[in-house]
């Protein structure tokens, strides 16, 4: 992980200001709720979401709307989940290290 290329909008005030605890590759973080998993990864500076199964190239979400399948991560033990389609939730475990085919 590196310093995030993204930051929260200045003066952002949300109706749901809460954060929730997630585990990213086993390490605990607090992220704002209502974010997608893919957005939370960018927020935390995790710019790589998966390793390409053939070329071993690092990859990351391209579209953030469910069509590119580049942000596949393991969520709560379920492999190959599109991070952009799942909102973060309390105690969610996210693993970017590839375990399955993709």
């Amino acid at each position: 992980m590196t310093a995030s290329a993204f930051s929260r909008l200045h003066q952002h005030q949300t109706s749901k200001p809460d954060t929730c605890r997630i585990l990213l590759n086993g390490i605990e973080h607090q992220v704002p709720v209502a974010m997608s998993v893919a957005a939370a990864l960018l927020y935390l500076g995790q710019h790589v979401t998966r390793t390409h199964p053939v070329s071993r190239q690092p990859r990351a979400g391209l579209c953030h709307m469910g069509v590119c399948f580049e942000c596949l991560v393991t969520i709560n033990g379920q492999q190959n989940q599109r991070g952009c389609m799942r909102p973060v939730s309390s105690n969610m475990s996210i693993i970017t290290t590839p375990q399955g085919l993709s």
Partner: protein
Amino acid sequence: MTQIYDYLVVGAGPAGMAAAIEASHAGLKVLVLDQAAAAGGQIFRNVGHSCAAQEQVLGPDYGLGKPLLQAFMAAPCDYRPLAQVWNIEPHAQGFTVAALIDGLSINFVASDLLIANGAMERPMAVSGWEKPGVMTAGAGQILLKASALVPKQVVLAGSGPLLLLLAHQYRAAGVTITALLDTTPRSNYWRAIPWLIAGLSMPKQLLKGVWLSLVQRIRVPYFTNVADIKIVGHIGAEAVRFTAAGKDYEVPTQLVLLHQGIVAQTQMAQTLACELSWNPVKQCWQIQTTGAGQTSVPGVQVAGDAGAIGGAQLAQLEGRLAAMARIERTGTRSSWAKKMLYQALALRICQLHWARGLVDRLYQPAPWLSTPTGTTLVCRCEQVSAAQITDIAQSGCAGVNQLKAFSRAGMGPCQGRQCGLNLGYLVAQAQGRPMAQVQPLSVRPPLSPINLGQLAQSSDL
């Protein structure tokens, strides 16, 4: 006993919401399945929970989604968010729609369907677009709308209204735009001139567009007629190389957002064998429709950008018109006023599509972007380069579906969504055939991934 819906709407964007409001108030039993956590589609994403700072940055057009969303949430229809439709097939009483909801596959039955699942961004296969740090402009806007995330610094590249709008919104949010690389070919401006008359029928939008375009040219390092974009970097993007007006440039950047317009998502209609045709102006495959979004398959309609790309306002009108046509078929005699409204809506839709002709021509994709070369990846999922595709196409493969079998392009997790169009362009170029003759990639379920356990446990509603 399986519950049978009168009208199943896929997608809760402007088209789907408008259709559900109209049909449910007329007494039809309506179900809306939407893949997102909240209704609104891409254009009005998160409009129900946005904050003042987001609304200020996103501008007044975004706020237009609020009354529509409120009317939708109050409408007497069933609505299932986070529902991923993975299969649709004919059923004795209409259609079965299988959706994955909370890890379970549920089969819904409906007599009639409205496909309103919108559009996606036209893939922009430039060298290095597979690197982390490269996203689409739409993704940038989604992060702003849904998560109030903005980049610290960015390079924007491509063409189209969304790219200019995002530049404007980012500047309002204090983002450093290192460069805006406009790939719109000069010839497009000449081609669009006769269509100025169409644009003039919507003077407010035309003025806004011209202003958006001019203001970026003044406020942002702006390069026109850009070609040969290459994104370079060790792991992620570190710089972007390009040519503009015959000169080579290299701009350091950690983030590049690409955009070259949007194309309809036709996969769902394709599984139902709805007829498609190539739209040479919009440069995309499009579901063939007759009045009120009726596809070639009885009982299946399409509305909004899932049909002919037109934007949020048109989508809303098309959704409403499609629902009115569906209500008509229940046999209830509609009032004189309703009939007049129907005709007026249909006329307005025609007019708005005509006005859209200007944008469609001005922002046609640059030919060099449709036919990538060399090591540029066309299929990101299966790692197939443009040179490999061209080789196979030149050796005489019959079309994109045979190309898929030979190269694996289109067989990965995205199921050809990111490579399908470019495969077609490359085959057309290599074999000297028009795009209309090169069929699109065939679509087979599942439309989105489902595992065997989920399949085995699928249940009827």
